[in-house]
């Protein structure tokens, strides 16, 4: 997994609430057996017309947001299905950070497995950042994970909270499976005990 240390980039706004994983990556693109290549279909039904042409109104089709690395989004982003194709598509497009009041649980977890930082902030601060995005490519936002700090183009800073274990993994690009494998003895013990206590499992 790619490390996340400091990110500077343009932030694009999507204020709609309840943006679900079907919107982020529609099901016809889940038929892949790979993790890569989904960026071109990120937000497919919003981004393209039925004829496959770009919808000029969609935010990421606008010149100033084409190279966005950050999304500032409405609450409950990523609700719906557990498809990890949603963070895969964001990552493949180049999005490394999503900021919202709230995220759906499974999507939130999936982001951390892919080097994407989801940041939860109170409504007032999300509103300020949503305003900031209106400056388009003139407004680079910087996110420092180590200091847990967001800095806008005019130097305003906001701190954010994050789970310490998730932060550690993201900063170091750690693979969960490798970490857990180090605890193999604990798993062995648990299974031995479980065979006695719950032999039917």
């Amino acid at each position, binding site marked *: 997994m790619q490390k996340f240390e400091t990110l500077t980039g343009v932030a694009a706004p999507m*204020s*709609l*609430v*309840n943006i*679900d994983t*079907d*919107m982020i990556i*529609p*099901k*016809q693109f*889940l*038929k*892949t*057996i*790979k*993790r890569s290549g989904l960026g071109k279909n990120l937000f497919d*039904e919003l981004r393209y017309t*039925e004829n496959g042409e770009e919808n000029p109104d969609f935010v990421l089709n606008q010149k100033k947001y084409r190279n966005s690395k950050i999304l500032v989004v*409405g*609450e*409950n982003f990523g*609700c*719906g*299905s*557990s*498809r*990890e194709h949603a*963070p895969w598509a964001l990552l493949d497009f180049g999005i490394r950070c999503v900021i919202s009041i*709230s*995220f*759906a*649980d*499974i999507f939130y*977890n*999936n982001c951390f*497995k*892919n080097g994407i930082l989801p940041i939860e902030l109170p409504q007032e601060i999300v509103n300020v950042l949503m305003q900031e995005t209106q400056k388009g490519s003139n407004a680079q936002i910087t996110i420092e994970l180590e200091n847990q700090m967001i800095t806008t183009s005019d130097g305003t800073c906001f701190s954010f909270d994050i*789970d*310490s*274990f998730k932060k550690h993994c993201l900063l170091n690009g750690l693979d*969960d*499976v490798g*970490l*857990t*494998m180090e*605890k*193999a003895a*604990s*798993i062995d013990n*648990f*299974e031995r005990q*479980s065979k006695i206590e*719950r*032999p*039917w*499992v």
Partner: protein
Amino acid sequence: MTPKTLYDKIWDAHVVHEAKDDTCLIYIDRHLVHEVTSPQAFEGLRLAGRKVRAPEKTIAVPDHNVPTTSDRSNPEKMTEDSAIQVAELDKNAKEFGIHYYPVTDIRQGIVHIVGPEQGWTLPGMTVVCGDSHTATHGAFGALAHGIGTSEVEHVLATQTLIQKKSKNMKVEITGKLPPNVTAKDITLSVIGKIGTAGGTGYVIEYCGEAIEDLSMEGRMTVCNMAIEGGARAGLIAPDKKTFDYVKGRPHAPKGFQWEAALSWWKTLYSDKTAKWDKVVTLIADNIAPVVTWGTSPEDVLPITETVPGPDNFKGAKADAARRSLKYMGLTPGTKLSEIEIDTVFIGSCTNGRIEDLRAAAKILKGRKIREGLRAMVVPGSGLVREQAEVEGLADIFKKAGFEWRLAGCSMCLAMNPDQLRPGERCAATSNRNFEGRQGRGGRTHLMSPAMAAAAAIAGKLTDVREMS
């Protein structure tokens, strides 16, 4: 002893390791696998030279992609990419030695219907699957939730998950349900009340007389949609109905193991003085047959109501309502019972079990669907399908004008050829009414099987109480 909730008890029984910051390693008793969210996980194992740690606890079945027409065993009936995913699952199941129900097996079906049906799902277990509707298994008092593909790989390799404990929410449904009001109406009404983010960060336990009165299948319908309320999982305490349902199933414990299991299962309930982080109460008598009008499962109203307008909402929700109404092609103030439909879909992990088919068939018996309507029943498993044929339900559906399909997820998420066309409006017993969910531009109204059957007859959304 500190009083505990059901969730606390199951959690505590599965902690393998706890770090200083409360991050836990949780043991997984059952891992269900399907073709869409697993190929990259198996590939990850292969690249790292890892095995499946507990193949005997891992069960795979193709369901999302598979066609539901009778000629489906012909791979040419699938699109090339669908066929590849199913073939990958075939290959991975063999290579890693996990339990497998291929498309040709009568036990094949939607993973969340197959698990309980085969007795894989048992009270007090932890159950995961790379699918958000894993919450279904909570009906057995099992801690069950969806995971992403990276976590699928993690469970395959280690039989554990890295987790932090969620908060406890109690959702109590007091009193008795009125006639023709079903488990689907309960679960949709709860989402309407708490919102689709209302359960975020929580595990919900559903309780109260109306929940106790539900059959196991009804309880599965309720827990299935816990995720639509944002909760990690939904739970219902196991009771005699649970034990009776489980007993004798192919993978349920037998003999002295059954007795041992039963004595533990009987301790699985929330202590009276257990602490809840949030409590929500609904009065069963106030729950009506409901339908959704918008593109979020929280956009739910009794069938007797009218389509709301953006003015009924505040801030960002008003914008969302405006967008929903445009997408759904609805005008505020229209009676819900006047909305005409083109398609009816009965099936899915929410409502694809035998009791769901019985409820729909009861309304359809001796009646015909409105002319020109497309209607299909997709049983949740091959065994549900067989049972429905034995009971004569299949004949009722066919005579009424429904297509009688083979098992799979089908039009719930439209990954197979069963899809809505742009603008087509569907009465569906599934779980999501998101934009494009059943096909690009398709318009979905969620409801119970009885309500969907009534809609099929009338050709519009209809109050089932006027038809039964």
